[in-house]
């Protein structure tokens, strides 16, 4: 950006920033948050699982955030959310740290950056639970915050066909089902997005996850967990266990439904 950036028409600058941020958001991997009977499960593609570089991060005991976009920008935004949650806890109390507040905070953060020479390159998803309700928020690069209750996704660039499939199935089959169903649906969606983005095979991805749990990060915000901290990453071994109940017929049905084989 040049020093003469202020001479550029506001609409053109906005458009340029949007293109820049959207490009990075689409380059980022697909992540999904789903409501299940005890809370929310967040499923994210992470090629570096096991290296201590998590994508799904704990903002507070009952709030998670995952980003899709430039890793550095996502890390900065996540740190901002964690620090501001800490400020709320010190200023008021832990009960006053809410997912909605965290999302609004990130929205303000993104808005400020959007007006700066270098906007936030990506999109964030904030998920949080309280005693009875699940809440999810998509926070875009320009600071717009979109709430939803039991389903939200970010990242990747799904075809209309892929998006429609996910939209249809999430409504009809999976919402507020047991955890294993929610995880399987999340892995299924991720496999489709992965295949479309990297021209790979959704079947190979799905099988690889079921077999090894690699390249995937699963975190739950679960009301039934005792104690204050409801944020719990699911280990690879538990992931395999959760996915294990699928019969071969059910697996065949999943594979048969893939858009591109």
């Amino acid at each position, binding site marked *: 950006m040049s020093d003469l950036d202020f001479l550029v028409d506001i609409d053109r600058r906005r458009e340029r920033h949007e293109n820049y941020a959207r490009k990075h958001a689409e380059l980022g991997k697909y992540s999904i948050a789903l409501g299940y009977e005890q809370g929310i499960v967040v499923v994210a593609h992470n090629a570096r699982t096991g290296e201590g570089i998590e994508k799904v991060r704990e903002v507070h005991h009952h709030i998670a955030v995952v980003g899709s976009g430039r890793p550095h920008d996502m890390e900065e935004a996540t740190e901002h959310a964690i620090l501001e949650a*800490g400020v709320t806890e*010190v200023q008021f109390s832990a009960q006053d740290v809410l997912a909605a507040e965290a999302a609004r905070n990130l929205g303000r953060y993104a808005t400020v950056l959007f007006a700066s020479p270098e906007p936030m390159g990506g999109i964030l998803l904030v998920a949080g639970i309280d005693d009875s309700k699940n809440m999810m928020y998509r926070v875009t690069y320009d600071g717009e915050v979109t709430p939803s209750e039991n389903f939200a996704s970010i990242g990747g660039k799904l075809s209309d066909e892929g998006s429609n499939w996910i939209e249809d199935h999430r409504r009809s089959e999976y919402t507020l089902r047991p955890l294993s169903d929610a995880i399987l649906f999340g892995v299924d969606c991720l496999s489709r997005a992965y295949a479309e983005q990297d021209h790979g095979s959704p079947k190979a991805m799905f099988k690889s996850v079921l077999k090894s749990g690699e390249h995937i990060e699963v975190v739950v915000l679960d009301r039934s967990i005792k104690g204050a901290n409801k944020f719990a990453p699911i280990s690879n071994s538990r992931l395999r266990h959760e996915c294990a109940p699928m019969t071969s017929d059910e697996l065949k049905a999943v594979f048969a439904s893939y858009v591109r084989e």
Partner: protein
Amino acid sequence: MQDFFQYISAEHPELLPCGVGRGVEEGSLPHGTTVIGVVYERGVLLAGDRQISMGGKKVRYRADKIEQIDSHSAIAYAGTMATCVQMAKIIRVSQEIFRKMNSRRLSLAGKASSLSQMIRKNLPAALDGLAFVPVLAGYDDGGVLYSFDIAGHATRCTDYAQSGSGGGDAAAVLKQQWRPQLGRDDAVGLALKALKNAAEEDSATGGMSHDIPLVYAIDASGVSRLEDEVIRGLAE
């Protein structure tokens, strides 16, 4: 990676205790007094009386002067209560934030260093009479204590540590009777004896007559608060 304490110092300084630029009249603010730490064979414990004093006056009993920081560490504090409570809250939240940002807990030495910086930053307020002088206890392959002075210098102790107006009197007992390989119950008994001695010599330290002292034990399994009945039994 930003440190939470630095972040609030820069962005939210109103959350930090601050000096008023002139000394607070002695005895005009509630103070927490004697707290001690004792290392025992399998861990470390923190104990504190439950009294809050304002000059020569006892203003409140049943005060908690120990705060759990995370699963394996806690602090006991002496000083101006308003400052102590706020600082303890900031320390607990900052350790949580470190864990969230780094996916690991800070080492005990790291916690001591971080606490030193906070106490040093509080020095102008401490000189105005708003002091915060904690004892940090944690389990790191064994029980370890850190004591601090008002300017933030940390001293690692592998036997016992104390803070507050009755600390010297408590230390006199601890110095005489502490020995390596103490069992937990013996260590609790020793801590109670030290607090009793402090209460006898220092009017700002509460004894056992109003409230049973607060005792936290920290070992490999984590931090646990001892029940009043258990403490009462060990005091006899």
